[in-house]
């Protein structure tokens, strides 16, 4: 087969990659050792970053893409896909991660935004992107820019699932509402939520987003993860929830099993026993406006 007959980086390959992650748990890791623990526990992929979100909260300052040396060490340590976070709008960080061989890029509000006007033009890349969203309009704007996967934002680094629930209910509820509309009403609704009408209509026809939708931002226990699956998530991202718990190996395995058996409370009960402490949580209402991550990018 000649190289010129192959097509790389197509929409189908990007969305197909995201689809292979379904029913899986993607875990935040900051080094090779954590990546191995995640893989051993049954993670479908790992997300490489400099610090987990709860540490980003504590440190303050500007949060950026991870050191490429760390990313390479993580890539070398595991055989599952490795993802990496870049700042919203920072297309050069994205170019760097693509060059390193990262399998998917997360344009993430957890890092400090680099551009308050524009997100990355994701169609220019061969590697697929995942982006955060709080509602249908935001999700469809990201998909329109080329995102191959959406994750509801939640509120990262809090260990509090309330915002993840809110955002998943927003998106699923809006899609359910579309089903009762005719084309004219959908076009009008698309204008209201600042999303392309053809994507709104596609959601109505399929009864779901055109790409895979994971849950993120505050998942700290097996029950949290299973609840997000029951609310309609295709899979979950767990950030600080694993490596800020008292027993990361056990917690990671338990969350993988809970996602796999999200409709079987007896399994969730069994895997939740004796896990030690989950990560310390934060009440969302105690956060100052400038500490809220989910409002970055819209």
């Amino acid at each position, binding site marked *: *087969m000649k190289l010129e*007959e*192959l*097509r*790389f*980086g*197509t929409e*189908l*390959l990007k969305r*197909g*990659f995201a*689809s*292979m*992650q*379904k*029913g*899986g748990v993607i875990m935040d890791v900051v080094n090779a050792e954590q990546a191995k623990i995640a*893989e051993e526990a*049954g*993670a*479908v*992929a790992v997300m490489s970053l400099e610090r987990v979100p709860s540490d980003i909260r504590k440190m303050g300052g500007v949060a950026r893409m991870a050191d490429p040396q760390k990313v390479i060490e993580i890539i070398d340590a595991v*055989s*599952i*896909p490795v993802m990496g976070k870049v700042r919203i709008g920072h297309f050069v960080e994205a170019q760097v991660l*693509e060059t390193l*061989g*990262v*399998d*998917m890029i997360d344009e993430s509000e957890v890092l400090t935004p680099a551009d308050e006007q524009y997100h990355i033009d994701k169609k220019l890349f*061969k*590697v*697929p992107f995942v982006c955060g969203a709080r509602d249908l309009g935001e999700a469809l704007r990201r998909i329109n820019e080329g995102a191959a996967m959406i994750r509801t934002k939640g509120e990262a680094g809090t260990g509090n699932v309330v915002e993840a629930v809110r955002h998943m209910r927003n998106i699923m509820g809006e899609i359910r509402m579309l089903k009762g509309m005719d084309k004219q009403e959908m076009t009008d609704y698309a204008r209201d939520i600042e999303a392309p009408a053809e994507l709104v209509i596609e959601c109505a026809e399929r009864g779901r987003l055109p790409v895979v939708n994971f849950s993120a931002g505050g998942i700290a226990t097996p029950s949290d993860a299973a609840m997000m699956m029951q609310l309609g998530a295709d899979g979950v991202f767990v950030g600080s929830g694993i490596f800020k718990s008292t027993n990361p190996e056990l917690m990671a395995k338990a969350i*993988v*099993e809970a996602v*796999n058996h999200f409709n079987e409370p007896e399994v969730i009960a069994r895997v939740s026993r004796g896990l030690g402490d989950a990560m310390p949580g934060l009440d969302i209402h105690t956060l100052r406006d400038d500490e809220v991550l989910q409002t970055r990018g819209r």
Partner: protein
Amino acid sequence: MDVKVGVLALQGNVSEHIDAFVLALDRIGCGHSSSVVTVRHPADLEGCHALALPGGESTTISRLIDKNHLYEPIRNFSGGIFATCAGMVLIATHVDDARINTLNLIDMTVDRNAFGRQRESFEADISLSDIDGGPFHAIFIRAPVATHAGAGVTVLSRLDQGIVAVEQGKHMALSFHPELGGDTRLHERFLKIIGV
């Protein structure tokens, strides 16, 4: 014959496989007398004539097969198995990764991620021996290849990197994703092999 197809639904591209089998059964005129179901527990395999092992993460799926007590039931499954991508890794006799508990159902040695990382994933028109209708548009996503196939294995397609489509008895294994392209010729061929 009432046909029942199971799709292993532990992790990965499950709904696409269900849709593709529903479409293929429709196209061969068995739409009304067939069902496609998810398989998560050993009891779900009862009455199935075929089982699809979908794409996903082979290390994750292998662990979940063990956890859900499905290893022996799948190994002893009397129907045909349709294995794609991660499924091809699982169904082999040998894999370049000791952590995967292979099902030993197709006599071949498989290399995981043989083409590289996601940026090296590709679409291409490949030729398949013994399949009518011209080249097959194949979607390779972090795909494996077989580097060696035993004497009892029929090789349907081979690229420079290795073997990408095989059959042995009632089983078929593909390193690409026919469930993503809308072309159901391989599904239809598989259904014919198992006697539909």
